[in-house]
């Protein structure tokens, strides 16, 4: 697949995101792409405002009896609430572009997560949380920059792998296992919270073998989202799995696997 066709495919993902059609795990990746690409950002701005306008087609007359009933029900609640709560505190208005600062931090988190195999991954889909964690993520990014391990091109490669139409995708209950070229990723979005002192651990079995080999450990974010690249050669792996293990990981699974997925 050429760079041009890959880029066109990613811009199609941006359009899907603008219309609100992407599941959360895929949306998070597109957010990172938008945050790191001026053309994608411009495309998103144009198409999301166009998508927003579609809502106006739903603006139709409501019969008067229903309107009166809804209003009476609502205003009764509001009037009862008004004297009790009093004026709300003044607030600052964040610039709209501020959301993308959060998205940029999300991308930074993704970069950091992907270059530090086995470390926690923090993929934010929530502005407020992203902003709260800004300091931490900037610190993490500084660490990754010091390590010199990754460049923006590497990030683009990773994001491209994850959203590329020619990637192989293997569904699991918690998300998707993505394989592109010789690279393997977990893009998981519905991981249950872990008990204290535990982590998720990835396992791999070579093609033709049933013996599980220990791989990296990881912890999902507060939303149950984790995106990790496994340090393996996809051409040699026949099965991947995840289980919950004590901090530091185990040499063999000690709990029933969260999922086991043959890559075929």
């Amino acid at each position, binding site marked *: 697949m050429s760079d041009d066709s890959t880029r066109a495919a990613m811009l199609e993902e941006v*359009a899907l995101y603008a219309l*609100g059609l992407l599941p959360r795990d895929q*949306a998070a990746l597109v957010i990172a792409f938008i945050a790191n690409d001026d053309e994608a950002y411009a495309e998103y701005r144009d198409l999301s405002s166009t998508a927003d306008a579609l809502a*106006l087609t*739903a603006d139709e007359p409501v019969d008067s009896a229903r309107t009166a009933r*809804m209003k009476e029900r609502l205003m009764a609640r509001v009037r009862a609430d008004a004297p009790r709560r009093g004026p709300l505190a003044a607030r600052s208005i964040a610039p709209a572009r501020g*959301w993308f600062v959060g998205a940029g931090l999300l991308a930074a988190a993704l970069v950091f997560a992907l270059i530090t195999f086995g470390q926690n991954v923090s993929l934010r889909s929530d502005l407020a949380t992203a902003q709260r964690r800004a300091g931490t993520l900037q610190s993490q990014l500084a660490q990754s920059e010091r390590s010199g391990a990754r460049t923006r091109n590497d990030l683009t490669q990773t994001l491209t792998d994850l959203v590329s139409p020619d990637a192989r995708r293997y569904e699991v209950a918690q998300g998707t296992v993505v394989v592109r070229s010789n690279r393997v990723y977990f893009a998981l979005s519905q991981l249950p919270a872990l008990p204290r002192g535990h982590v998720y651990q990835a396992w791999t079995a070579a093609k033709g073998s049933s013996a599980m080999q220990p791989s990296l450990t990881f912890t999902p974010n507060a939303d149950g989202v984790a995106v990790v690249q496994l340090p393996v050669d996809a051409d040699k792996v026949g099965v991947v799995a995840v289980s919950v293990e004590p901090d530091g990981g185990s040499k063999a699974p000690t709990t029933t696997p969260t999922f086991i997925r043959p890559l075929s």
Partner: protein
Amino acid sequence: MERVSARDVAAFEALYDAYHRLVFGIGLRMLGDPALAEDVTQTVFLKLWTAPAAFRGGSFVAWVSRVTRNCSLDVLRSRAARPETEIPADLALDGALEDAIFVRLDAQRLRDALATLPIEQRSLIEQGFFAGVTHAELARRTDTPLGTVKTRIRSGLHRLRRALGEQVPG
């Protein structure tokens, strides 16, 4: 919205009068049930009243529409297992279709602009916007290859944007 933040009941009532048709209409299109659409309308406006700071500026129409869509998606999710798609209500609302242009647009103009799209693009965009499903589900429902769904949606949105631009210049 500033007056609503100051607990001005009359201002809130005026907001309701101006936008309840839109909120109820989105709920009805997405849920297909007037009673559920009423509940969504109640929820959205109560959110406006109790947490006006959630609106961070930009186009109010776009924002309240996104809040309504998300509220309706919550209802859809509670009725059936669905992938979690969501429109971030805080997303950049500094797009080129500013509030002033929204004011000049109306349902008929939108319908006219939509009518300029080929049916295969229009259908996917409308279903995608109001059905609360993923693109993969759209492909399945319409028996259309996934790649074709993506291309049609992107092309259709661009075409719709151009059509709106022609109808509402500058």
